[in-house]
């Protein structure tokens, strides 16, 4: 028996009817066509399905879609501005922090929430911050460099204050 579901995804309200056993990642990919979010392990180990739920990074394979009723979701499709990549995305491109790309949407969304909480992290904090995202192309060094560069790029310009 399908349940009505209202989701605001990347600022846009969607009214759906979904089977209650479906996970958030399945609805995002299959019903809304937002295939930037990847399903990896399905167990919460890999972080490939990371999205922001009310600004908080979660594994969307471990959230029932009906548990997201009425909430705000950000996927990788909602991060870039119309004319430019988000500074985190640009930093990943600039630092070669992407190989096959399967982990990248989840990593970038986790980094977005991490830098929102901690805008000037140390390298060790970055490594802990992305501990829930696996990259099997073995690219963590470049990912860490990209996150540190993104943190700098996102800092408000010095000397603009009153």
């Amino acid at each position, binding site marked *: 028996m399908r349940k009505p579901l209202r989701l605001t995804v990347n600022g846009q309200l969607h009214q759906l009817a979904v089977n209650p056993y479906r*996970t958030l990642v399945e609805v995002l990919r299959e019903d809304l066509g937002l295939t930037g979010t990847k399903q990896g392990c399905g167990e919460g180990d890999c972080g490939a399905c990371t999205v922001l739920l009310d600004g908080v990074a979660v594994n969307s394979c471990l959230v029932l879609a009906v548990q997201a*009723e009425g909430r705000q979701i950000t996927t990788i499709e909602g991060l870039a501005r119309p004319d430019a990549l988000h500074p985190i995305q640009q930093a990943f491109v600039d630092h070669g922090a992407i190989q096959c790309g399967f982990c990248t949407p989840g990593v970038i969304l986790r980094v977005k929430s991490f830098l929102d909480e901690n805008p000037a992290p140390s390298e060790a904090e970055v490594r802990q911050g992305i501990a829930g995202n696996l990259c099997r192309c073995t690219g963590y060094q470049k990912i860490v460099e990209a996150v540190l560069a993104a943190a700098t790029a996102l800092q408000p310009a010095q000397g603009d204050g009153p």
Partner: protein
Amino acid sequence: MAIWRFDVIQPDSLEEAVAALARHGQDAQLIAGGTDLLRDIHLGLKRPRWVISLDRIQALGLISEGPDGSLVVGSGVTMTALGADGRVRGRATALAEAARGMGSPQVRNRATVGGNLCNARPCADTAPPAIACDALLLLTGAAGSREVSCGQYMTGPGQTVRKADEILQEIRLPRLPLHTGSAFLSATNRKAVEITITSAAVRITLESAGGPIREAMIALGSVGPIPLRSPAAEAVLVGQLPVDTLLARAASAAVGDSRPIDDMRAGAAYRKWMVETLVARALQIACQRAREGST
């Protein structure tokens, strides 16, 4: 992987949730954060017909001060919230430490303290510190509410005293005496997204800042079918001054109270070494905290 189909009930109140649980009994599973249940369903380990979600019962997600001075932690409080709350750190530092180390950031943002205690895995990281800090669990069912001490809650792997129609509503952390300190340490193969090989939670209450030990609680995780207290180590400590040689003797005594098994993560012998190492280190940290007056 075949899709398992189930229906979801999303009650708005605890009373409705209890009624739904009473109605569907053995065919139902409760879900809070979902980090254990949805994984188990995905792997085919659990096949519920009904899933009762607690996500709309907002009171379960709150931390508040109780009238008796205890800190009331709703069972739906996430690991992230538990680890970040200054009142939890003041009351039960060991519990906050366990919450901060569990899983990954994404898992901690969903996983709840109630889920961790009710799944009752021998490796559940919040159980030893909750036991060491004298936590009381409030269970609410069709027949009303009752309190169970956390140390009496688990009865075997995945087994608790919770009845089929009961929901874990609150974890109550009592105000502990002055000069109390606690600490939690765990051994894991990796630094994140891991299952604990051995954990130790200790709580020490001193007579005074420079005085002898009045009370000692030592709880061990992943070295038995349920979290285990170590009466032998506690007996070594009580009444004595907390000097390093005494703490080492207590740690050594704790090994005898552990009952680890060999499994894919570690051998029983290694786990026993880890009991001694972790208890010794945790005792030193807890005693230091007790002298400084923090919990």
